[in-house]
């Protein structure tokens, strides 16, 4: 094999133009650029092409190259290195593909095993709904076992809070523009409104056209207090609560 010099371009837009190295061997005849091109496109099997003649041709070229053609020599070395690497990879044994991982399947649902348990619970729930417990309040079906807090009662807690509050310093309150009515005043107004109406009134009827949340709370508390002291009576009509004056 002997290298022949010819002008050809490996990379038309490239900066470095590889040297025109011509290679002749039993397995391949052509330029280094052509071999490089075919190898890159996978159109030639490098495992059947000995690269030793190519290396020799390159070395001959390098030793005889003019000092001002270093870029060309570099491009040739790059092409040769690529061929060597590709051939090395082609000679490596191909690893077996990894075995496919089996995705474990979820077990089939077994909820049907609980069908009888569900029916049994449903029956128990219905039977229990026929029993009413003394501490169940007005909604007997919603009876809840009281929270276990030892021997503490709500009275104990209320008295503890009362003692605590009695020792607390009063909060400095900034006076607001609007005078806040006392509960007694609101009670008097509500009672007068109910008595003068002479009929059943709802909570909304006791409120002015526009009112604040604080107004609503005051009226609500006033109604509760009036109910407690027996000045008014209340009942339920559908979803609404009615209020009326109590006959003296």
């Amino acid at each position: 094999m002997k290298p022949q010099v010819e002008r050809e371009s490996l990379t038309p837009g490239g900066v470095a133009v590889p040297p025109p190295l011509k290679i002749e061997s039993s397995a391949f005849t052509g330029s280094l650029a052509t071999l490089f091109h075919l190898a890159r496109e996978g159109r030639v099997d490098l495992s059947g092409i000995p690269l030793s003649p190519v290396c020799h041709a390159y070395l001959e070229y390098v030793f005889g190259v003019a000092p001002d053609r270093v870029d060309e020599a570099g491009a040739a070395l790059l092409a040769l290195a690529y061929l060597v690497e590709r051939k090395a990879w082609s000679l490596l044994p191909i690893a077996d593909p990894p075995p496919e991982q089996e995705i474990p399947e979820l077990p089939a649902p077994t909820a049907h095993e609980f069908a009888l348990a569900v029916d049994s619970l449903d029956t128990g729930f219905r039977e229990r709904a026929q029993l009413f417990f003394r501490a169940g309040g007005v909604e007997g079906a919603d009876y809840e076992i009281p929270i276990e807090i030892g021997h503490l009662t709500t009275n104990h807690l209320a008295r503890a809070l009362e003692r605590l509050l009695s020792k607390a310093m009063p909060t400095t309150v900034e006076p607001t523009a609007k005078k806040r009515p006392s509960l007694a005043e609101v009670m008097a107004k509500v009672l007068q409104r109910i008595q003068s109406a002479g009929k059943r009134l709802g909570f909304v009827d006791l409120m002015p056209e526009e009112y604040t949340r604080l107004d609503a709370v005051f009226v609500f508390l006033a109604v509760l207090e009036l109910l407690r002291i027996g000045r008014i009576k209340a009942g339920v009509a559908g979803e609404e609560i009615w209020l009326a004056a109590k006959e003296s």
Partner: protein
Amino acid sequence: MQAAIERANEKGGELVDAVEALLFVAPAPVSLQDLAEASGREEEQVRDALEALSDRLERTGGIKLVKIAGGYQLCTKPEFAEQVANLLRPQKRRLGRSALEVLAIIAYRQPITAQEIFIIRGVQSDYSLRVLMDLGLIQELERKQAPGRPILYGTTQQFLHQFNLNDLSDLPEVPGVPSVD
């Protein structure tokens, strides 16, 4: 049982009446131990008194004695449920089938994680778990010593009360589902 009733009714049945009074004022099921402590008698004597009281209440009146949620409590007899409901107007509430299914799984398999419930049901149960938690029928017991430390769920005393059970051993045996001790 007859012998226990006769024993309890000796001395005018004073202990029977005392137990009745205690149960009347109790807002929750009262254990045998608490009844014995409050009445100053032995548990065996109180047990006899409870049997005598139950026998008497069964024969007459509108109240009965039930053993529920680990204690004893007085309640109205079911034959008067309609009249009592007319007075109290309780909200009629029913648990959906899916919530009942989740509850049954928890009751029989507790302590159990949400993931384990998912494997049994084949569907997510987050909503049912939330509903059951809101109703106080289940509770978080502890964390499982497993990756992620998932929450372990179990039933509550309220569950026992709401489903007319004294304890978990009262759950009926279901073929294929191991009972809870």
